[in-house]
């Protein structure tokens, strides 16, 4: 018996879950896929008095087209996302990234809402929503609140969600025609957390890059939007020189730390290389019409 004692609740509806969160708030942890929370409980790094298991709430698991983009329920499994035609067409960057999350048995259980709420700085989903300006929709007894990705990640493992709020869905904006995407990362072993990774989405209009979206993971306390690098490609086009300059700007704009896995300098260098590779691949896909 590894996890500490808790009172277990498995609500059958969103309303019930939000009521429970309203009553227990800070003493409660929400259990989604459990691929990060259960290890934390097994190590007893957290001792919540109450565990609210939202896996029995069918209404939290869906993928649907919405306003030209896609809306995804918080407990939708990563495995369902990676195999979804809708995600492949409407949010191809998310499909690219999801295939890199952990291993297949982890994605069987892991959920998009769980990954975003946990906010591990090396995780893929936070970088994707940051690059795409997705909207996190939180619900509490007080009502619904829409939080843009730029305001969602506060610091290491910390989000803008209040203790009584439940992340219920994530809304991704439409992907313009002529867009290519790529998510590239480096990890020591396949499936490990990335030392650093970069999400890229490029929209080409003739020989111009009309829209460029870049975000890094593993390079700071949370996902980092690489705005300076985006601007270089948007202004300078998708040439090799412009991509190289953007990669340098990306490396200059991150705040990696040293740990047992890699030094800060190495991570910074990885961000440069990953930015270059992600941009090259996204541009090639945009030009080839294969997303």
């Amino acid at each position, binding site marked *: 018996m*590894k996890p*500490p004692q*808790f009172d*277990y609740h*498995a609500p059958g509806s969103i309303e019930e879950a939000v009521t429970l969160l309203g009553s227990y708030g800070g003493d409660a942890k929400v259990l989604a896929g459990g691929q990060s929370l259960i290890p934390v409980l*097994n190590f007893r790094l957290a001792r919540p008095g109450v565990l609210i*298991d939202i896996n029995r709430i069918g209404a939290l698991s869906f993928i649907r087209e919405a306003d030209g983009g896609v809306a995804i329920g918080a407990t939708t499994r990563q495995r369902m996302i990676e195999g979804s035609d809708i995600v492949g067409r409407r949010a191809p960057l998310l499909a690219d990234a999801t295939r890199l999350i952990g291993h297949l*048995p982890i994605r069987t259980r892991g959920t998009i809402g769980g990954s975003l709420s946990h906010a591990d700085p090396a995780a893929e989903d936070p970088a994707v929503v940051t690059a795409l300006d997705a909207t996190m929709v939180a619900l509490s007894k007080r009502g619904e609140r829409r939080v843009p990705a730029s305001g969602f990640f506060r610091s290491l493992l910390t989000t803008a969600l209040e203790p009584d709020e439940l992340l219920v869905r994530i809304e991704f904006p439409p992907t313009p025609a002529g867009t290519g995407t790529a998510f590239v990362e480096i990890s020591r072993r396949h499936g490990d957390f990335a030392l650093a990774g970069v999400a890229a989405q490029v929209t080409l209009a003739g020989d111009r890059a009309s829209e460029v979206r870049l975000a890094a993971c593993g390079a700071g306390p949370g996902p980092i939007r690489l705005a300076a690098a985006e601007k270089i490609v948007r202004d300078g086009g998708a040439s090799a020189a412009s991509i190289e300059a953007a990669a340098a700007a990306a490396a200059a704009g991150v705040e990696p730390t040293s740990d047992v896995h890699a030094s800060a300098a190495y991570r910074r260098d990885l961000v440069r290389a990953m930015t270059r590779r992600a941009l090259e691949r996204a541009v090639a896909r945009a030009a080839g019409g294969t997303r």
Partner: protein
Amino acid sequence: MKDMRKVSVTVNGKSYAREVETRLLLSDFIRHELELTGTHVGCEHGVCGACTILLEGRTARSCLMLAVQVDGANITTVEGIAPSEKELHPLQQAFMDNHGLQCGYCTPGMLTTLIEFLQDNPDPTEHEVRVAISGNLCRCTGYQGIVDAALDAAKRLQGGKRA
């Protein structure tokens, strides 16, 4: 006070009902309550893959789930892979024939992982096999025997279908 809950679950085709503490991990439930000790427990935080089971036919880490979460579910453990007491599954036979195991600790997780993988990818490349088992740690074999066994099993399973 202990938070207890009833769990009814089908494992390897057999129904079980137990009353357990809500904090009991599925891996410990399978081993200690159901006494199916074929499922091994290594790291208990989802890294080593030894406790991998098939939940509704899909691989999952049993150390990263609570027993209460599988109420009503259908599970296959390594004990449920072979067609009978006397016969091995072609994948198990291929592990034997290709030195796919030494101490045997990782083997239950390797087998469950590869059963699902070979169902989805009946004719895999060596690289695909290596990626498939990248979430399962083996400290004895150096993996080569396991990869050989998986490729051999793929051939045997396909041969079986043609025959």
